[in-house]
């Protein structure tokens, strides 16, 4: 599988190179849009679908550019979920003058160093999946994303708790930048919503939560928010339930792993239940994706995985921006910088995952966030967890 993919991408790249050499004629020319996602390795299931989503968008939406006389092609790259590989690919991508836009990546850890290359080359980048705040907070004109941000999840969880009528919360975090960051946003929003924050504590403890639980149980909050990763939070949930806490647990997308129910067992669905927020859901959560889902299944033989719809929209945005920039340049091949500007300048673009407007740093002006309820103590049913609430929230400025 891996080898065929390599061979395929090599062939595609080679054929593109040949057509690029041949097609330097007047008026038209070859325009390429690159994708970078893990096409091999453990995360390739999602990475390949990001590429497939982009490919589908290219096929369906390249019409306007072809009418202007351009040939539009996809240039898929495999970043292997590895920052080094992502940066090496990025160097190749910026060295190819036909590439005017890049859709990528899946991992924030790969996107952040790779986008330094895009930034230096003035190459517009639309990210379908990267949620780390730093993706956009560096303030690069070239970098945009069409998903939410990690640091908004605290706000999401607090809004959700408020909508459930929770009056008092206890806030915990794992002392990492990720968990503590989310927990602090949660606390601010919870207080703003009039909830009583009974405690705010960080802990690196992963086994024995007795000492932490005593003041928590004495305070008896209606809900507990824990910002962190499932391997710690699930143990905490189990021990809290064993000690008789019956309120609601709320967490973040670090909790999104079937291993969580493996650890916590029945405790996870007991009492008030357990909820977690995520920044992007599978395609079926977005109302505009009905046609996309059938088209995708028809072309690739299986339904789209998470982030495939975002891959589609990222490509659509790239194509629309290239079209706008080409029109401004008098139907000639646009400059990269013009494309990057055109991406940021898009107004109310109707994508399948929602209406897209970028703010001054490339975040969506309002992004969708989902709160998911853990419905079953069976790890195999983790992906069937229902969405408890969908929220549209603006990123922090």
């Amino acid at each position, binding site marked *: 599988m891996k080898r065929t993919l390599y061979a395929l991408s090599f062939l595609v790249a080679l054929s593109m190179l040949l057509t690029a050499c041949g097609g330097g004629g007047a008026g038209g020319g070859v325009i390429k849009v690159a994708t970078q996602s893990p096409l091999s390795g453990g995360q390739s299931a999602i990475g390949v679908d990001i590429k497939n989503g982009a490919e589908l968008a290219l096929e369906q939406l390249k019409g306007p550019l072809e009418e202007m006389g351009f040939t539009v092609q996809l240039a898929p790259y495999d970043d292997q979920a590895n920052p080094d590989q992502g940066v090496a690919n990025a160097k190749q991508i910026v060295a190819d003058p036909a590439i005017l836009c890049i859709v990528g990546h899946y991992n924030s850890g790969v996107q952040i160093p790779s986008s330094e290359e895009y930034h230096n080359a003035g190459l517009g980048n639309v990210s379908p999946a990267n949620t780390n705040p730093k993706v956009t907070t560096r303030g690069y004109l070239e970098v945009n994303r069409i998903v939410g941000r990690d640091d908004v999840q605290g706000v999401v969880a607090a809004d959700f708790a408020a909508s459930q009528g929770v009056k008092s919360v206890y806030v915990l975090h794992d*002392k990492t930048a990720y968990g503590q960051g989310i927990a602090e946003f949660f606390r601010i929003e919870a207080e703003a919503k009039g909830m*009583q924050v*009974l*405690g*705010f*504590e*960080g*802990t*690196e403890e*992963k*086994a*024995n939560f*007795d*000492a*932490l639980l*005593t*003041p928590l*149980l*004495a*305070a*008896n909050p209606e809900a507990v928010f824990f910002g962190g990763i499932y*391997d710690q939070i699930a*143990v905490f949930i*189990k*021990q809290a339930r*064993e*000690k*008789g806490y019956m309120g609601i647990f709320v967490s973040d997308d670090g909790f999104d792993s079937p*291993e969580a129910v*493996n*650890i916590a*067992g029945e405790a996870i669905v007991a009492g008030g239940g357990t909820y977690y927020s995520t920044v992007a859901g599978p395609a079926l959560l977005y109302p505009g994706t009905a046609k996309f889902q059938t088209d995708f299944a028809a072309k690739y033989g299986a339904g789209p995985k998470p982030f495939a719809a975002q891959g589609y929209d990222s490509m659509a945005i790239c194509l629309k921006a290239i079209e706008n920039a080409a029109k401004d340049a008098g139907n000639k091949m646009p400059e990269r910088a013009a494309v990057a500007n055109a991406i940021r300048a898009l107004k109310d673009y109707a994508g399948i995952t929602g209406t897209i407007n970028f703010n001054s740093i490339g975040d969506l002006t309002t992004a969708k966030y989902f709160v998911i309820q853990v419905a079953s103590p069976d790890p195999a049913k983790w992906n069937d967890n229902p969405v408890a609430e969908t929220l549209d929230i603006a990123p922090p400025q």
Partner: protein
Amino acid sequence: MLRRFGSVYLRELLRPLGQMIVFVLGSGFVLSAVMVVLALLMRGSAADKALLARNGTDLLTFTLSNLPQVLIDSVTLGFVYAAIALGYSMVYGVLEFINFAHSEIFATGAFIGVEFLIILEGAGRLDGIGNLLAYTWLVVAIILGMLGAGLLATGVERIAYRPLRGAPRLVPLISAIGVSFFLQDAIRMIESLTTGQFHRIIPTFGNFDQRIMLGNIPLSSGPILIGIQVKSVIVIVAAMLMLIGLNFLVNATKVGKAIRAVAADRPTASLMGINVNRIISLTFLVGGALGGAAGVLYALKFTRIDPFVGFFPGLKAFTAAVLGGIGNLTGALLGGVVLGMLENFAGAYLSAFTMGAAGAEYKDILAFAILILVLIFRPSGLLGEQVGQKA
């Protein structure tokens, strides 16, 4: 003659039991008294008012109502520490050397026991079994953990420590740290190769997760439940049995006499016909087995293990051994109980007494600050002067 021996046996069985009761009640009483006095002193203070506004209870009610549960949790943790601390203390008593690899011996025991139970679960042997069978499997898991960990400890001694016995004291210490890293990554490698992941979770079976309710204290913010989990009881009982057994082995048997002789004076013991190498191997075997059993109990109590799981309990248990007076088995027990109490009291009460400024996350700082204070005034530990009882 026979009657004399009988009374020795009985004494060595009852003495540690008495010590445990005295230590638990004593340190529990002292710490509880300190907390209550503190709460009384802080009546009407800002912290008192803040808690009243937040929880609807004042500091004194909060302290008193939580005391029973905190004490129960403390004792459980204290006995886990004590069981691990015994391994450090035994080896130190005999070799005057700190076996830093003991925390990984502990982790190995945990992995062996848990993997055994996971295999049973995979074979469907843990589904819907009765209590008797559940306890039998648990005991088998503990015994396997003890065997594996004991043999590993003996092997480590043979390969990494014995060749260095004449070397300066720092050399085997460095060797122990090396073994510690080696074992951590060896567990990680073996687990990753065979199971594809190195976080393991003990299967849920039997009635271990059940909670025996002992009552509740009604408060305006809601009732405070007091209870103890079945698995905590198992941890306490198993640790007590281990402590009594070890004490019996060291103080009432011929082998124990040999161990004490080697600890007291190695060259002379060897002149008296004691096979010193064998006794040292045996010391590692026993210490390692105790660590392995503690590992399985730890996994039972706290659910999840990984190859680095031994680090913090190991460090705390080593601290407990030093606090009690290293090389002294009674001291290890006392140190474990006191450290478990300090940690849980600090964790439970810090946030209320500091108005949330220093929460449970600072429990170790407080526990270790008190430890430093104790060691300043008693450098050889709480029971350090009774060298005669050195194992």
